[in-house]
């Protein structure tokens, strides 16, 4: 099978590559947004606790 034939996917290129491309996009978005939410939530919790600690002393 040549490279051009592989890319063509027997004439179903748009459907096959479209599906795998969409899958990649969704997994990157899901993974990245969860990671970003966690980093932000941790930073905001830390800020609040530090502010509470300094106001006490």
């Amino acid at each position, binding site marked *: 099978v040549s490279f051009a034939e592989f890319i063509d*996917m027997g*004439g179903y290129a748009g459907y096959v590559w479209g*599906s795998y491309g969409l899958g990649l996009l969704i997994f990157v978005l899901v993974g990245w947004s969860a990671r970003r939410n966690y980093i932000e*939530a*941790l930073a905001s919790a830390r800020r609040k606790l530090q502010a509470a600690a300094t106001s006490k002393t």
Partner: protein
Amino acid sequence: MWTWFHKLASPPYAFRLAGILRPWFFWPAVIAMLIATFGGLVIVPADYQQKDAFRILYLHASAGIMSMMVYGVMAIAAAVGLIWRMKLAHAVAASCASIGAAFTALTLATGSMWGRPMWGTWWEWDPRITSELVLLFMYVGYIALRSSFDDISRADRASAVLAIVGAVDVPIVHYSVIWWNSLHQGPTLMTKGAITGSMVWPWLTMLLGYTLFFAAVLCDRIRVEILKRERNASWLNEMIVDARAS
């Protein structure tokens, strides 16, 4: 006997454990998904009936199984939270929703992209497809209901009821191809001889990768939910202010 359960249900322990486990889920997930994609697109030969379009099914059927499995985890966690008033179980349920919605949307979209060349239509009001769409609405409704409450424990209780009631749809999705005369093809994994070994391994590898990926994302989402619920806890102070946690 139940000490492990109580330990797991304690927020500081679960928070730490999620942080330790996440990379052990995430990187194997990436490797499994890459191997499965390479297998499905390059190694496995084209199907004799569906030609190369069947390669979409490695993604579609794995995402479909995950859409139901994640809902099952969410509904069970919601029930545990409701019955034993366990905050951590509610945190798990809340963490599942967005991941499950993503898997369901991917199932519908890739099914559409497979259906266009194979059935000649992007969409059909078929029992399997309609019940999967209802599953997407359940996830979206769950997320919308949660966001309508300011008080997190009220959001937990109300959304848990919705998650449990909505679980009725999961067996409907699964059995729709058996109960009704559906255009959608029947179950493959549970039917002997429906798929040959040389073609099934990328599917099982993809499913493994998706499951690990779900676990990895859950580790991040659970920690966000724990942080929301434990704002003023002393353990949190010790962990993230005194000794800077990663």
